[in-house]
């Protein structure tokens, strides 16, 4: 894989958001709990588990919203002692998560998150078909299945 092949349409707005807001990390997460793009420092974070938990939290919040007569809450804010999380909906099925440290910058984070969200919205609409086409160009499905089935048989063995 080359760097040129990286899907810049998703990462560039996230990098801009991190740089311009002074945030630590920005992630894009689907409502099914998968992380699809990230920017900033992720070395301290298990992004896979984070994506699953954030998606669960957002789903639960959506149900809560319905109970009070809202279709959903578009922004969630978690305030900690040192780190804080700003979560916003980009599309119906994708969330943007921003982790930041200086709570004084919440206004800036919110502003940059909104800007990034607007840029990401169009890319996300075509993202699935674009990704499938990119992957199809690199992956031979019959071979993939054969290798994957071998891995499954090797890893999920009774001991």
């Amino acid at each position, binding site marked *: *894989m080359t760097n040129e*092949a*990286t*899907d810049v349409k*998703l*990462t560039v707005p996230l990098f801009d958001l991190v740089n311009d807001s002074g945030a630590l990390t920005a992630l894009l997460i*689907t*409502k*099914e*709990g*998968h*992380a*699809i*793009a*990230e920017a900033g420092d992720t070395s301290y974070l*298990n992004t*896979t*588990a984070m994506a*699953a*938990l954030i998606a*669960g939290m957002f*789903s*639960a919040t959506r*149900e809560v919203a319905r109970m009070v007569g809202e279709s959903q809450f578009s922004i969630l804010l978690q305030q900690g002692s040192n780190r804080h999380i700003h979560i916003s909906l980009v599309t119906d099925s994708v969330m943007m998560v921003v982790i930041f440290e200086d709570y004084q910058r919440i206004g800036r984070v919110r502003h940059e998150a909104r800007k990034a969200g607007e840029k990401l919205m169009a890319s996300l609409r075509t993202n699935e078909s*674009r*990704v*499938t086409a*990119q*992957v*199809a160009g*690199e*992956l*031979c*499905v019959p*071979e*993939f*299945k054969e*290798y*994957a*089935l071998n*891995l*499954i*048989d090797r*890893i*999920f*063995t*009774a*001991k």
Partner: protein
Amino acid sequence: MPHISYERREIAFKLVYYGPGMSGKTTNLAQIHKRLAAEVKTEMISLDTHEDRTLFFDFMPVELGSIDGYMIRFNMYTVPGQVYYEASRRLILDGADGVVFVADSQPGRLEENVLSYKRMEQNLRSYKHDPRNFPMVLQYNKRDCPSALPVGTLEREVSCHGVPVVEAVATEGRGVMETVRLLSRQIVERFHL
């Protein structure tokens, strides 16, 4: 359909363990976690109550390995089994690529198995899946209990025939790896781009 990330060079499948309360869904995941080699597993996350009942879900990602530069990841979830967590169960099924139904073999629990199975079918339909044509394994757990329900009982009650069946004692790890292996194979067999 698995989640494919070109950005992260990753193909992620979602496996969900479904079934009535206390049937052994979390135990299945814990036993898989115990038996997997260290290099393929990460931490298992449980959102449970003080009584160790699953409150929202358990989550465990497993990295199978890399194929043509793409990491193959199986994200495994359990749903909370208790009747009043129906909304959570439905949400967790969203985006699932396959389901293990963990049935409780104790004779007094047939009705709960049937109810849970039917709800699972309804929930799958709500996501436009045909439950009769969806990767699935039926696990009869707790086979060591006295007068265990005969295999075939649940299939007759809910008219699901042809679903692969595994007999298990999850607390001892019996049948656990066979269950996940059978489901994983079904899921990969259906993979397409």
